[in-house]
């Protein structure tokens, strides 16, 4: 066997994994999105009816826009909480630093379902949050505001996805050489100025990555809305799921999935473009 053919073979082997596991299923969906359902039977066709159906029914794209807003809010809350947390962990010294970090990303090793049930038990009427608020006198009686509505989705997603924000931010902070903050102080800057002019700009890439992770993960999540969202918390993920599970309209579900997929790609592409321009 010549080295050329062996190299080709190696390439084919390496390429086959993403091809089989990623490109093929997505391609399958993409093709199916042009099919249709007739009398509970999927008919291979080449129709744009599914996409037209999405655009014509404002309930769908309202849900779509609401979901985008929700996920953006999840990412925003994630950054608002995750950045300060990452920063303060980064400023710590010694073993406690990595211990705390480990503690914060520990939920990544836990089952998703367990985490959602945990959040439910915290947010519920007899949950920890209500007990705490009543105990401290902030509320007179337990509130139903925290579960089975949109707020619940927001809180739960932001909490569960927090490690995905903290980790990339912490990593970019760690990559900032100590000498840079020292040089800033050496040139006369106080801690605040050093943060605004050196640390924050240099940690933006990780922050953007964290926001993006969170946004895209939240976009695709249909279990959390289902478990804590109640009747009001209808997200696009749930709509897609219902097309497969309840309505048995796979082609329409596929079309909706393609729309969401393209949107996520566009967001990631935009972020990559902006990152490239900054450099």
């Amino acid at each position, binding site marked *: 066997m010549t080295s050329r053919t062996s190299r080709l073979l190696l390439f084919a082997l390496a390429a086959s994994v993403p091809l089989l596991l990623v490109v093929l299923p997505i391609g399958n969906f993409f093709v199916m999105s042009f099919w249709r359902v007739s009398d509970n039977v999927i008919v291979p066709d080449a129709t744009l009816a599914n996409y037209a159906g999405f655009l014509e029914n404002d309930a769908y794209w309202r849900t779509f826009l609401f979901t985008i807003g929700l996920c953006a809010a999840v990412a925003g809350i994630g950054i608002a909480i995750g950045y300060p947390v990452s920063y303060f962990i980064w400023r710590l010294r010694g073993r406690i630093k990595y211990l705390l970090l480990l503690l914060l990303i520990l939920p990544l090793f836990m089952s998703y379902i367990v985490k959602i049930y945990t959040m439910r038990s915290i947010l519920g009427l007899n949950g920890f949050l209500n007990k705490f608020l009543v105990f401290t006198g902030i509320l007179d009686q337990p509130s139903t505001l925290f579960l089975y509505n949109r707020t619940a989705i927001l809180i739960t997603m932001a909490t569960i996805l927090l490690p995905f924000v903290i980790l990339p931010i912490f990593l970019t902070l760690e990559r900032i*050489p100590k*000498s*840079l903050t*020292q*040089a*800033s*102080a*050496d*040139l*006369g*800057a*106080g801690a605040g*100025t050093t943060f605004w*002019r*050196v640390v924050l*700009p*240099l940690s933006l890439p990780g922050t953007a990555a964290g926001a993006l992770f969170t946004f895209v993960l939240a976009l695709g999540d249909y279990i959390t809305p289902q478990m804590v969202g109640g009747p009001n918390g209808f997200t696009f993920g749930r709509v897609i799921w219902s097309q497969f599970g309840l309505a048995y309209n796979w082609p329409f579900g596929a079309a909706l999935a393609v729309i969401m997929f393209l949107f996520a790609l566009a967001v990631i592409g935009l972020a990559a473009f902006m990152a490239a321009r900054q450099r």
Partner: protein
Amino acid sequence: MALQLEALSKSYGTVEVLRPIDLEIKDGEFLTLLGPSGSGKTTILRMIGGFTQPSGGRILLDGQDLARVPTNKRPFNTVFQDYALFPHMSVAKNVGYGLSIRRMPKDEIARAVQEALDTVGLGSFHDRSPAELSGGQRQRVALARAIVCRPRIVLLDEPLSALDAALRRQMQGFLKDLQRQIGTTFLFVTHDQQEALTMSDRMVVMNVGSVEQIGSPKDIYYRPRTRFVASFIGDNNLCEADIDADGRLVTPMGATARPDGVEAAPRRVLMAVRPELISLSPRDNALETEAEVLSVEFAGAGSDMTLRLPGIETPFTARITSEPGQTPPAPGARQSIWIRRDDIAVVEKAAEQAP
């Protein structure tokens, strides 16, 4: 009197990285801290800069204790070993950083930055990003950034160690000229003795956390006071000798009047002779002996001759000038050598305290 260190020391737990040191840094001088790694030289620099807290002693600027003055309020600027240029700022923004923090008007900053960049020979580099610069250029930007705020002292933490040999030589001359031109005090840390000898007005030789000797490069080179200094700086031939009851220096090559500045008290000492100060022709006021040639090594500008001297265990090296037509003595030959009395450095044995 500008900056004074009084019994300044540093320990980490039980490890003493710097023993109490007293040092005075004069206004406008180029002072070098020279020593191998672990000698404590960088620790001194970092304590002056305010990056490391002293464990004991004081740092006084014009008599004022700096203990409670944080880094950003000290009138010193540092050139870091890795240059520490802000990667997200242009060259001009880097250099102007300190001035913008002092809220200087924009046009004045621009002028000062231009002047500083001109001084380091990078007048047209404003808009470049640090990533686009070579090592030597980054070095110059770091230097411009450090001098633009007109600090009382510029602290330089081995800034040349990352450069290749040719560029390093060039930067040494440049730094020295720059320092003379702006008249600012430079405190320079290096492990490179050549660099220290070339650039310094005065140098502090350090080893394992304490000062071995402070003096001008010539002093340090020709009048080492400890065995460490004698062997760390340049090449040296060392052997034991005595000061006798008459105050004469008794060497294995014979006795001679003791060199200037050496105490008369009878004791055992070390004598040090530079290889290039051993002469193959008769000199006045010199010790003379006949040595056995062990080997001769041609090294371009000179030849290193290894000699066995009567009564001295370790062979001596003599550096003699090479001439194209010359045939050096063959190994095994007898060779008369002369060492001038004034070329002998007397090193106190007591001064070589065990760490």
